[in-house]
């Protein structure tokens, strides 16, 4: 994938950070306004996909390599599981909202409230963002292997690519 014209590259380099910031905002205030982990994660992933489309695959892969995205993905899921399991040790049952019930109740409708729900949102936002970007990056790596001239696409013989 080669990337696009100069106009697109300039605007994309300004806009991508705004999209990323907007995604973080939606994740963090997920317990107050609509949104939450999944929607925010999709927006974060789309900022990286903008990078991929505007600058080409190699640039995006240097920025966030495959291995790093895969590891962020796993770390996000393990954080979510850790929050659930810590609920057992402090509260008694799985997934208890231990921060809300015991340590840090906070006031309603403020940023620090609702216990462990913002932390879960952050974990899910990390995971979803990394996963979606990984899916599109892997599909674009695969697409690179075709050498197309007009309507005829030539397929090189049997490379071993991983089916993620």
């Amino acid at each position, binding site marked *: 994938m080669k990337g696009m014209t100069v106009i697109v590259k300039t605007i994309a380099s300004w806009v991508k950070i705004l999209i990323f910031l907007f995604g973080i905002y939606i994740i963090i205030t997920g317990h107050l*306004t*609509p949104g939450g982990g*999944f929607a925010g994660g999709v927006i974060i992933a789309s900022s990286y996909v903008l990078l991929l489309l505007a600058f080409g695959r190699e640039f995006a892969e240097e920025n966030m390599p495959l291995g790093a995205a895969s590891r962020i993905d796993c770390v996000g899921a393990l954080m979510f599981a850790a929050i659930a399991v810590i609920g057992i040790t402090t509260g008694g049952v799985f997934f208890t909202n231990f921060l809300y019930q015991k340590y840090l109740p906070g006031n*309603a*409708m403020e940023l620090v409230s609702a216990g462990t729900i913002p932390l879960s949102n952050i974990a899910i936002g990390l995971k979803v963002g990394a996963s979606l970007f990984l*899916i599109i990056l*892997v*599909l674009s790596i*695969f*697409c690179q292997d075709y050498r197309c001239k007009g309507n005829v696409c030539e*397929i090189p013989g049997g490379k071993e690519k991983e*089916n*993620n």
Partner: protein
Amino acid sequence: MLYSLCFLLFMVGLYCAVVKKNMVKIVLGILVMEYAVNLFLIMLGYRAGGVAPIVSKEDIVEAGGTLSSMFVAKSVDPLPQALVLTAIVISLGSLALMISICIRTYEKYETFDITEIRRLKG
């Protein structure tokens, strides 16, 4: 009556997934079916003249910290919205897997036509 329109959309998706010969069209048929089911789930929670179930500061009764009864009486049911969010995530994952299988199959068989992808018989 609106529910039957939802069901009609479901049938359109099912027809597309069963009858068409191109692999990508079959995947699109399954996607339309999943949209129809999500639409049906959201319509279940509807209440005529309702508001979106987003709590703002005025809806919380100051004394007990519970929701005001006016909010509860007017808001739309939020549970189907949570169900649909989960279903959308699941169909996203399923779509990604189906597309990657389609791409791999194109590499091996060089066609998207399922009548020609028939090595397994009997």
